[in-house]
């Protein structure tokens, strides 16, 4: 209203209205302040949905590369040359099989008879063989 003639009534009315604005209570001021915060947060640019879609191929390629690297590392020479706990466990199982195998025990017992048999052979047989 600048530059216009203002009557005393309008001037007084303005004074009264401005005073009533100044007397707005703290609770209302606080809520208006929070409303302003929310409005300003709405200013922050939202990332467009198409931009997230453009990242999909790159993410897929990265995931595939990680998978291939994992598989190759597991099958490589570094993995094969290193005795693992699984290999050691497997060897122990084979030893236990040998010890508990019935045929093997019979064979071991047969070795004692061999020496008795060899001692009972005549000398000639020994010489002729040599």
């Amino acid at each position, binding site marked *: *209203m600048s530059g216009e003639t203002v*009557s005393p009534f309008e001037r007084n009315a303005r004074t*009264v209205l401005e005073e009533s604005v100044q007397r707005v*209570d703290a609770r*209302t001021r606080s809520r208006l302040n929070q*409303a302003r*915060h929310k409005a*300003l947060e709405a*200013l922050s640019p939202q990332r467009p949905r198409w931009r997230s879609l453009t990242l999909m191929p790159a993410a897929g390629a990265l995931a595939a590369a990680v998978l291939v690297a994992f598989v190759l590392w597991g099958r490589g020479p570094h993995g094969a040359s290193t005795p693992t706990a699984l290999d050691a466990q497997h060897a122990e199982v084979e030893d236990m099989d040998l010890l508990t195998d019935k045929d093997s025990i019979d064979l071991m017992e047969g070795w004692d008879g061999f020496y008795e048999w060899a001692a009972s052979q005549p000398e000639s047989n020994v010489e002729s063989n040599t």
Partner: protein
Amino acid sequence: MPEFATLASPYSMPAALHGDTDLTDPQEQTQARALNQFLAGVELKAFKIAQAALRHEDDALDAVQDAMLQLARAYAARPAEEWKPLFYRILENRIRDMQRRRTVRGRIMAWLPLRGGDDGDEEFDPLALAASPDPQPVRRLELDEAMGALEQALQRLPRRQQQAFLLRTLEGLDVAQTATAMGCSEGSVKTHYFRAVQALRAQLGELHT
């Protein structure tokens, strides 16, 4: 760190201005500062205008908040000189929507028997008792009387006259800006304003303060 330390003070600087949100562009930060300054300057007057129209504090706060959000979302890129009439135009639309909704709700509720009042449900809020800047007691009494009389007289004005009077007198918009805010011609603004002043003067005299 205690949990309460992370709570934002209602009077702290908005997130958009201190880097919590993604306003990396300096131009956007400048725009956010300008909008914050604008909204801080109009929020109290806008609240009083909405309160005069809606006669309900919470509805007035909702209307102002919606207008702020709408301005930030849709018109923040416009020149700052256009913000004020645009903001009051949005606020006026919100006020009108609320008044229509209230009318419909009132018609529906009139058919329902034994509806409970909701005035006593509000919880006690100590902030409501906080003291505001206080002038001298006698001056305060005079202002209280004048304020009460003016607010009552404003309530009796037709909506368009009330709007024209408040936008011109309280917010200080010129005729062109008021016309934009009200969505009418400058001639209509002058007519509404003139009739408002005449009606108020008839009721209040010269309104001594």
